[in-house]
């Protein structure tokens, strides 16, 4: 994306999840007076579009605070989300991240597949200057951790003397919670949400066994 916009509060990086959604975006860009592009043309053209901002966003809260941002589309084709395209897609997300950094965004949220690509691998992102990157999962983890701390306070429990059990610890949110809270609790137990064979026979699923526990010394 060319040009830099000063004082951007945030940027959202995403991609279209279907060719229909991509067609709708291009239709808006073409304007009502022009016919919609045929599907085959969209499939031919979209993969060539370099990541760039599509639109500016301004949001306001009920107490009057405002935030200005941009939505940056990485133009990952909807039918190229498999492992075979991982390098190409990481390059697209990097380019989109570059757009966000050059636009001066203070915080950038990676949405959709871009968060899956980069989660836990923030070293894949370009040099970030003052820009912070996050994902929807990160926000969820943040809310959960905050909620647990508040609940402990309300219940009069000391986190440092408590044992934490994370069910679903192999997932993005669960593992994030475990990483955040493990240093703050007495002991942390983690387990996957389901046993692996439940994928094929969900009706026979049993509660997961406790896999391990770690104890802070």
């Amino acid at each position, binding site marked *: 994306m060319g040009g830099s916009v000063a004082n951007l509060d945030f940027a959202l990086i995403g991609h279209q999840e279907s060719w229909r959604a991509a067609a709708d975006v291009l239709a808006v860009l073409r304007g009502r007076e022009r016919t919609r592009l*045929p599907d085959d043309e969209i499939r*031919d053209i979209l993969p060539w579009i370099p990541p760039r901002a599509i639109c500016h966003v301004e949001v306001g809260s009920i107490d009057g605070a405002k935030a200005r941002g941009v939505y940056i589309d990485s133009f990952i084709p909807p039918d190229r989300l498999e492992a075979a395209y991982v390098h190409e897609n990481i390059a697209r997300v990097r380019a989109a991240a570059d757009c966000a950094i050059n636009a001066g965004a203070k915080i950038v949220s990676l949405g959709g597949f871009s968060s899956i690509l980069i989660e836990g691998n923030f070293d894949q992102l370009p040099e970030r200057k003052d820009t912070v990157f996050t994902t929807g999962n990160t926000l969820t983890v943040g809310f959960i951790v905050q909620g647990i701390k508040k609940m402990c306070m309300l219940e009069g429990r000391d986190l440092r003397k408590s044992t934490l059990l994370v069910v679903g610890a192999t997932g993005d949110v669960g593992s994030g919670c475990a990483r955040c809270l493990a240093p703050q609790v007495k002991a942390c137990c983690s387990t996957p949400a389901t046993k692996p064979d439940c994928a094929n026979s969900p009706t026979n699923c049993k509660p997961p066994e406790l896999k391990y526990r770690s104890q802070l010394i």
Partner: protein
Amino acid sequence: MESLINVNCSTIECASPAAPIWQDILAQAMTGELIAAMNYTSLSEICDDPEEVADALEHAEIERGHATRFAAEGRKIGVDVTNNVEAKHWTRLREAFLRCVRERDFIACLIVQEIMLESFAVASYARVGRVAPGSLGVTFAAIAAEEEDHVDHAMSILRAERALDAERFDEKVYRLHLEVMTTLAKMLAKECKDGHCEVCHATCVKPALFDVSLSAAELRGASLQQYLKTLDMLGIPGEVTLTWVAQLPI
């Protein structure tokens, strides 16, 4: 002043089934190079600075050299590479450039030649260079790299111009985009809906590009990508240029 372009090519019997396809690809490339040579020659006529005049004439000579190299590659594979600088699309592109010359608008000339036409050349030559056999591929790749190199100097002039008045500059680029890129988009369309391009020696080469691992869609996509990236480097906002490109005729 138009110069008479005459590149002599001897006719040799075609050697391979793909030769006629390469013949048409070379014909487009050669025509483009000769148009570029004509454009730089015309540009030299509105330059005030003797160094700029020399620079423009040197560029013209380089482009003529590219045309000669393409013709030579044609001979190696046994084809006679013709050119037609008066073909309908190339004529419109040349006329757009000459309007800028008549207005003595040096910046507009650079935008048309260095941003729009060169994006097309750099991108399409690079794609051809990856798949063309032997020295044909090497030549296309080398000329693509050479074209990309001499855009850098123009880019610094144009960035400096934009820094003076971005809004006015962007309006100029948009006006030229409507004129030039609309024509390029028709040339790059998957099918030639406006009739024969007047460069291909027989029927349209586009359906046959698959036989040499190319496609009109790929060449169009690569050219539009290069164009968008070049506009990004100028500093024009990406959401603006995306709208420009999305509104081109397909």
